[in-house]
């Protein structure tokens, strides 16, 4: 067990810190779920990509710098430490990217990955359908082969970044006779194809973080199929779920929230009950525990280990922690807790309210925590189905 960073790792950290210090925008960007914010975020991604920092763990030829997962964790620590913007293309770089890396043809990799890293193409997630939420196998949108195209009909929903994105990925039923996990194919589709209608969905914060995407006889070239026809479920499931989770929910995010929570408490300590203090400490411990467990897992993965259902533990832990931190922050803010950032009395409220509304979705999306507890009990504890 060695819990210190190597000289190389320290050097990598220093380099990232220096570059970010010089380039991170001084003013926070608007939400990427607004038109103006989306534009700002694409500009930031172009700068990040220009510096070679857009997707550090990817191979150099796809716009990365071939870093390993530990270096990724270090980069993320510096990224959050610098207060850098959220990643507008997170569905692409964190979710789809690794899948293309594993299943894509050389042509697909060359075609999609560099523009994904640079966010010239922003990706939209098309996992859910009206009748396929927690039950992801119940997909009904069809993609019927017609020569060198699929004819796509149906509807995706909860397509995040749908309002301002460029391309959508998801599973489609290519065998209309099939059921459940079978007969599905993983397909990539540009949203400007004829027959596609995008209808933004306003979420609790009033912004269109999601969209419904309707397909009406849309012709998608078969070359945009990822993996084999009928193997969509395997493509979606088999890539390292943990790595994806790690990308999206790196410890740095929660450590940063915990730090801000401690600072918020300090600034308002005189006005809140002492009991709050203990809860703040518990949250900080939670963020540390999450960090430690992540480094432990990454150490194992780098040494050739595998991870499976353990990612369900991860999902529950971070989502409950994140929600708890935001609940506490609003509690500390007291009477100012529900003020919108523009309110005259909202000084010092930061973005906790927005963060809270977002944190509420944590126990729901990416598989509800109820589904995760089923997985933990059946796959990790071995309880009967």
């Amino acid at each position, binding site marked *: 067990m060695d819990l210190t960073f190597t000289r190389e790792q320290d050097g990598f950290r220093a380099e990232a810190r220096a570059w970010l210090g010089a380039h991170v925008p001084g003013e926070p960007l608007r939400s990427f779920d607004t038109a103006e914010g989306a534009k700002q975020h694409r500009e930031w991604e172009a700068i990040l990509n220009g510096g070679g920092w857009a997707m550090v763990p990817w191979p150099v030829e796809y716009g990365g710098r071939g870093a390993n997962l530990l270096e990724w964790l270090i980069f993320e620590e510096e990224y959050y430490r610098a207060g850098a913007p959220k990643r507008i293309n997170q569905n692409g770089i964190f979710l789809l990217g690794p899948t293309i890396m594993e299943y894509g043809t050389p042509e697909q990799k060359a075609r999609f990955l560099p523009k994904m890293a640079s966010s010239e193409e922003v990706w939209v997630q098309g996992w859910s359908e009206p*009748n396929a939420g927690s039950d992801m196998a119940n997909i009904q949108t069809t993609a019927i082969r017609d020569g060198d195209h699929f004819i796509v009909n149906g509807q995706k929903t909860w397509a995040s970044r749908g309002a301002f994105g460029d391309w959508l990925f998801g599973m489609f039923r290519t065998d209309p006779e099939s059921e459940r996990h079978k007969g599905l194919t993983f397909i990539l589709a540009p949203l400007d194809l004829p027959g596609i209608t995008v209808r933004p969905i306003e979420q*609790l914060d009033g912004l269109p973080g999601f969209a419904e995407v309707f397909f009406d006889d849309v012709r998608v070239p078969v070359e945009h199929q990822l993996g084999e026809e009928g193997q969509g479920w395997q493509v979606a499931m088999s890539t390292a779920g943990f790595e994806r989770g790690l990308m999206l929910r790196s410890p740095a995010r929660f450590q940063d929230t915990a730090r801000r929570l401690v600072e918020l408490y300090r600034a308002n300590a005189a006005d809140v009950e002492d009991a709050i203090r203990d809860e703040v400490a518990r949250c900080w411990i939670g963020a540390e525990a999450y960090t430690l467990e992540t480094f432990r897992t990454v150490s194992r993965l780098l040494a050739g280990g595998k991870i499976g259902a353990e990612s369900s533990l991860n999902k529950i832990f971070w989502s409950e922690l994140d929600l708890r931190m935001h609940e506490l922050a609003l509690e500390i803010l007291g009477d100012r807790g529900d003020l919108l950032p523009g309110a005259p009395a909202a000084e010092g409220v930061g973005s906790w309210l927005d963060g809270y509304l977002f944190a509420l979705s944590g126990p729901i999306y990416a598989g509800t925590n109820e589904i995760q507890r089923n997985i933990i009990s059946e796959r990790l504890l071995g309880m009967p189905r």
Partner: protein
Amino acid sequence: MDFRFDEDQELLQTTVRDFLEGEITAEVVRGLWETKTARSPELWKTLAEIGLPGMLVPEEHGGMGMDEVDFVLLLEETGRAGLAEPIVATAAVAAPMLRGVGGDLAKQWLPKIATGDAIVAVGHPSLPFVEDAHVADLLLLPAGDELHAVLAADVEITEQPTNDPSRRIASVSFAAAEGTRIASGADAAQLWETAFDRGALACAAQALGACDRMLQIAVEYTSERKQFGKPIGSFQAVKHHLAAVKVKLEYARPVVQRAAHSVASGSAKRGLHVSMAKLVACEAAVFGAKQTLQCHGAIGYTWEQDLHVWMRRAWSLDRSWGRSPAHLARVRAAILEPDARLGAGTTFSNA
């Protein structure tokens, strides 16, 4: 000892429930969100027709002459309906305050409250913002240890937009003058104290209704929505989430009703009872919001689903008329007094 409402009270509750169901849908609430004030003068007049604003206004001033026990069931219904009109400020707090002040002021304003021709907002000295100041005709405001009644034209209002489009609060300032002062010293303190209890009680009652409505929405949704070939409401995890809310709700309700009785009867334990009620009712509602949202899954997380109308109400009521820490502090202080009467047989005043 008879901890029941009488038939008239229950009949009135049913009537008001049916009326509000007809008048106020989630669509109506959303429509009001799009307006400048998020309030509807027409709706307010309609509410006046069934007597809601004037429920606590004495009959001599054209009101219903009822008390908080009569009113508490109706307040619960306004919470169930997601009604954001200034019932709490005007009907539950300002009307009895004006009744307490009496004199010309009462004569002038109470009839207007009863007919729906006046909205009165109240800025309590312990609270930073004033609810519904933006639509008030008259505002009851503190200045030092004095209580002032100020016309809308004479106050400066700075609106403070919040997360709940139904909740409209503002910072209010005014120039205190001899002419606006209506009470001071011990009189004013007494008026402010009962105002706080009435405001908190009304919010507690509305919270019960909001919680019940969220449960209803979640039960309906989870009974319809299918996953893995079954309604998700048949899964134990979903059932138990909602059962836990039901337990909290049903044990909050009698606490609120007892608090109404204590306020109506002027019990010495009124403040304690109200704080207990505010605490448990809002806890049930906030917990209910969290659990019902989780049971909805992603659909609950959208603006277009109705649930969040009540979820925001639950959060707003929790913040109105004293947040939980303040109410818990009152309870704590009461039970830790050296001569506090605690234990078996101390719940009812003459036991």
